[in-house]
């Protein structure tokens, strides 16, 4: 199996930020992403999925180290995101088929 090692960044955040965040991510250079609807609980309370203001999205990004760092810095530096309910984590994946992996 020929694979390319990439980072996978997962962002779990409020559904009604979707447009704004995707906008920011694309500005930073993201070319591909996957979005899944979610509900959950965290430091900022329960998101029960009952309605839009009360739901989460899970954004999955396959990207290289450089872009991951760029996004990380953006999230850390931008006041805006400090006030948003958001959880971000990284792991490593091996991508089989090359498309736009950012």
């Amino acid at each position: 199996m020929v694979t390319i090692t990439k980072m996978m960044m997962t962002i779990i955040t409020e559904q009604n930020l979707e447009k704004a965040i995707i906008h920011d991510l694309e500005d930073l250079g993201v070319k591909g992403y996957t979005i899944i609807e979610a509900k959950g609980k965290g430091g900022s309370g329960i998101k029960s999925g009952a309605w839009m203001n009360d739901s989460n999205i899970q954004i999955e990004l396959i990207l290289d180290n450089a872009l991951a760092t760029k996004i990380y810095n953006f999230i850390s530096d931008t006041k805006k995101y400090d006030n948003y309910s958001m959880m971000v984590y990284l792991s490593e994946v091996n991508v089989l088929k090359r498309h736009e992996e950012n």
Partner: protein
Amino acid sequence: MVLDPVVMFFIAGFTISLMRVDFKLPSAIYEFLSIMLLITIGLKGGIELSKQHVGDLVGDVGLVLLMGVLIPLIAYPILYLVGRFKRVDAASIAAHYGSVSVGTYAVGVAFLETHHVTYESHMPLYLVVLEIPAIVVGIILAKGITKETNWAEMAQESFLAKSIVLLFVGLFIGWAAGEKIHATLDPFFFAPFKGILALFLLEMGIVAASQVGLLKKYGLFLVAFGIIFPVIAAAVGLEFAHVMGLSLGGALLLMILAASASYIAVPAAVRIALPEANPGLSLTASLGITFPFNVIVGVPLYYKMAEMYLGG
């Protein structure tokens, strides 16, 4: 006073949520119901608008805009000075109360239908008009008039918010197609209106009750504000209705627009424009306190007020 059945659905939802029954509408259905309400309210207004000169309304629209600026300006000092909220939070809550709640408006429409009271046909136009100024005032209150604010983006966020656009689509199609649309769309949009509202309110009761747990966290002032301020705002609305020469029914709806607080469009817009504001605070107030208060107590109370003042 006998409760309107649609209000009973709200109370039922509120109650079962407090009893920890694990029920909520699928979110697709919740969205469907609110889309139906918005389009239908718009269509109703549009059909009526088609019967009159839109030009005649310019003055009144200006007055309503003024009301939309005034209400957050009254709310802000109360929140900031009396409530001792942070500036940005006071501004954010003020923006919520300057804007409107379509659900509450629909309850008012149902109330008037039940009591066979007529109202000015163009009220849904004011519903659309009032969504905007409060947000702008809120941002200026929070930040002053700085260059930092991306007003173009703000305008896009607000003017093109889902709820406004759907109201507007309904208004426009109703206006363009006129009375004859009734026959075509009645069985899907108009006839089931109250039933749709009933199911919508069942869900809103559940959602509102889920905010109640946060009341403790935010304290008694917020509860008091969420109950007393709508009455003040309704009085402001009544005065505007008087000046505009609205009928009893129209006055009630304008009072409801004044007294109700947004829990959909404004939270989303403020989240982008004022990220430092605590969204729980304003949502708890508008959705957990003011919405139930208006639906159960406010609407009939404002009707009484209007009757006394305007001599219904």
